[in-house]
C-alpha cells in the first residue's frame, strides 16, 4: 500500500496566493506593454502567451527552486498549477489594460 502524503492547507493556500499575485502583476504589465506597442491582435495574444510563460519560468526557477527539483515541495502538481491553470484566468486583466493603454496612447 502506497504511503499517502498529508498536506498542510494554509501553506498550500499561501503559495497559491503568491503565485497568483506574480501572475496578476505580469498580466497587467504585459497589458500595458501591449497597449504601448500596439501589435496586431494575433501577435498581441502571442505576446501575452510568451511573456506570461517567460515570467512563469522565472517564478519556477527562482521561487520554486525548480532547477534543484524542489518544485514538488511547494505545489501538488507544479507544472500544471504554474504554467497552465491561470493562463485563461488572467486574459481579461491583460485585455483590459491593453485596451485602456491603447486608447490613451493612440
Amino acid at each position: 500500500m502506497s504511503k499517502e502524503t498529508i498536506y498542510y492547507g494554509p501553506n498550500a493556500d499561501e503559495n497559491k496566493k503568491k503565485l497568483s499575485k506574480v501572475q496578476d502583476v505580469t498580466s497587467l504589465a504585459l497589458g500595458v506593454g501591449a497597449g504601448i506597442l500596439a501589435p496586431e491582435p494575433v501577435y498581441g495574444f502571442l505576446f501575452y502567451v510568451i511573456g506570461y510563460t517567460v515570467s512563469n519560468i522565472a517564478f519556477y526557477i527562482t521561487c520554486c527552486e525548480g532547477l534543484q527539483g524542489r518544485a514538488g515541495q511547494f505545489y501538488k502538481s507544479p507544472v500544471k498549477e504554474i504554467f497552465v491553470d491561470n493562463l485563461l484566468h488572467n486574459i481579461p486583466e491583460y485585455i483590459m489594460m491593453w485596451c485602456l493603454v491603447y486608447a490613451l496612447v493612440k
Partner: protein
Amino acid sequence: MSKILYIVGSILLLHAGYSSFEFHQLLKTTHHSSTDSGLPSDIIIEVLVGIVVLVAGSLSSIEIPNFLSVDNEVIHPDHKYLKPIEMSKATAEFEKLKINPFAELETRIEFIDIVNKRKEYAKWSGQEVEEK
C-alpha cells in the same frame, strides 16, 4: 527592494507610453499612417525593460522575511519565497519557531484535564523546591 523595482518599472512604462503617444501625434500631424512605420526601437526596448523590472519587483515582493522565535532568536526561513506544503516539513518549521498552529484547538477548556494538569504542576513545583 520590491517597491523600488515597482516604481522604476512604472516610470519606465509611463515614459515609454508618453513617448509612444507623442510619436503617434507626430505621425498624425505629418499625415503618415502608423502602420507604415513601426515604433522606434528605443520605445520598444524601454517597454520590454519596464515589464521585466515590474515582474522582478513582483517576484521579490513575495520573499518571506526572517522570523523572530519565542526565544528572541532571528530565524532564517529554509526557503526564501515559498513554504513547504507537506505536513511533516511544514510542522518542522513551526517547531523551529517553537509555536504550535493548533494551540488554540488543543488548549480549549473543555479538553483540558484539570486534575491531571494539577498533578503535573504539583510534581513540577515539588521538583523546583527540591532543586533549590
